[in-house]
């Protein structure tokens, strides 16, 4: 399960609302104890997708590398990625799946008409064919 602390949660929601009607993306930093993950900081990253960003996002590996570095410096771990689905449910889409990585939790925030609606966390498999829902609290 993954728990997002209040401060990073608010900054993620805020980021997603500001990016609306486009998708936003970012990194979640925190600690892992066995299966229990706690997010204590969120890092907004640039959506680097070239083209209409209303239904697409792309993370620059360099930015992810920087996020990982920032985590290490703060004695935290990079434990997940978040992105938003404007006017769309927080499911893990085929596009999400095919560009995912099994190492991290993927939190999807559904933003409906500019407002936060609901969120889910997903754990994709190795073959990028399926993603399991992870218990999420915030």
């Amino acid at each position, binding site marked *: 399960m993954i728990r997002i602390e209040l401060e990073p949660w608010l900054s993620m929601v805020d980021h997603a609302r500001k990016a609306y009607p486009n998708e936003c993306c970012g990194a979640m930093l925190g600690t892992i104890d066995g299966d229990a993950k706690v997010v204590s900081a969120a890092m907004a990253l640039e959506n680097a997708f070239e083209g209409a960003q209303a239904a697409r*996002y792309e993370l620059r590996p360099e930015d992810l590398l920087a996020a*990982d570095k920032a985590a290490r410096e703060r004695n935290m771990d990079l434990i997940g990625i978040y992105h938003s689905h*404007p006017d769309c449910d927080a499911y893990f889409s085929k596009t999400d799946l095919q560009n995912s990585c099994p190492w*991290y939790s993927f939190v999807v925030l559904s933003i409906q008409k500019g407002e936060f609606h609901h969120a889910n966390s997903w754990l994709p498999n190795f073959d990028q064919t399926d993603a399991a829902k992870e218990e999420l609290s915030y």
Partner: protein
Amino acid sequence: MAKVLIPTPLRQFTGKQDAVSVPGGTVGEVLSALTAQYPDLRKQIFNDEGKLRSFVNVYLNDEDIRYLAKNETPAADGDTVSLVPSIAGGSTAAPPAETPALTKDEILRYSRHLIIPEVGMEGQQKLKAAKVLLVGAGGLGAPLGLYLTAAGIGHIGIVDFDVVDFTNLQRQVIHSTRDVGRKKIDSAAEKMVAINPELKVTKHEVALSSENALDILKDYDLVVDGTDNFPTRYLVNDACVLLGKPNVYGSIFRFEGQSTIFAYPGGPCYRCLYPEPPPPGLVPSCAEGGVLGILPGTIGLIQATETVKLILGIGESLVGRLLLYDALGMRFRELKLRPNPECPVCGDHRTITKLIDYHQFCGVPNPLSAAPAQETKLNEGEISVTELKQKLDRGDDFVLIDVREPHEYQICAIPGAKLIPLGEFPKHVEEFAADADIVIHCKSGGRSARACGFLRQNGFQKVRNVVGGILAWSDQVDPSVPKY
């Protein structure tokens, strides 16, 4: 020796170390040495053919090795190797790679679409990939079902729990005379599959309700509203707003129709236009007020056109415009619609965040929870058609009044009834003695109940309403009386 930084989730394979120093002159050798030292790590980074997994990028210091010498990139002492996943995604599958291919038969079938530049292969594939929900398989649902199927929509869902009635055939062209008595959903699906055997039809044989609407709607890309009552109209609107699905709207009455698109991002919803339903009974339904049989064809096809345009992403949609059609004047007009910031379901301060009780909201009884007609007991001031028949047969001294319109009286009448249309009723009050025994009927009992109330207010004591009106008379007394 190069230092390899281990991403958090992989540290369980490296004895919890966040960095590992391994020998190797090139990045390729470093990675080989790393996975030799920690075999469990191998599966994480390489696939079965020994190639880097598609989501893994390898960085030497700050550079992607793909832009250096790939695996042959020299790694010196003090260099840092990082494993960085490539991550992207998006709410919708990206066309055209995700859209289904057309078969040879389909290319032939849709050839007149394919040669329109605005549609083309890509557009036809979008139509094939589209999932459209029709709410209602009646007047509007009939042309919608037929034409959307013919146009190549891949998956159409239908919500309907009604049965084909003889009175439907004048306009619901998806049903034939031999379908009378069949479920509309079965009759409609059969005609659609006959047009296109490749069509996937999902039958939702239920009354759409607050309990099931979100669950049914969520699997479709857009919803086409072909309902004929206010509770369902508000229900479809709110469910579409909550799910963020466009609602292609149409409505019809006598010679006039309307169409627009609600719940589209940035556009208004039905509640922005009509925050409150009209008082019950004010706006007659097609059953009460009648409808030109061709009208749902015109309006349904406007809805079908807008549906196809939305899926293709072409043209100028009806979002923000209410199209009004007057068949008698043969004129189209349009009204600009704007989202209402005060709208309770899509405005800035929302008070409706989940589905409510729409029958209560519209002030009408829920037909599903109402007791069946034959079990209703007569109330004070009511008379059954069988009792009326006995009264007539006995030759009782009483006045029987029919408050329908003259054109309805022409269709059928109860012998001995005096026609006084409801609107003219007040003018005739003085014709009756205050102690007269008065019985009033209409088509099904609604208008006559109002006439009874009016007489009682004016001091008449013995006034009774014929429950079920002339329709009940036809059912229970004289089947030769035509129903309409």
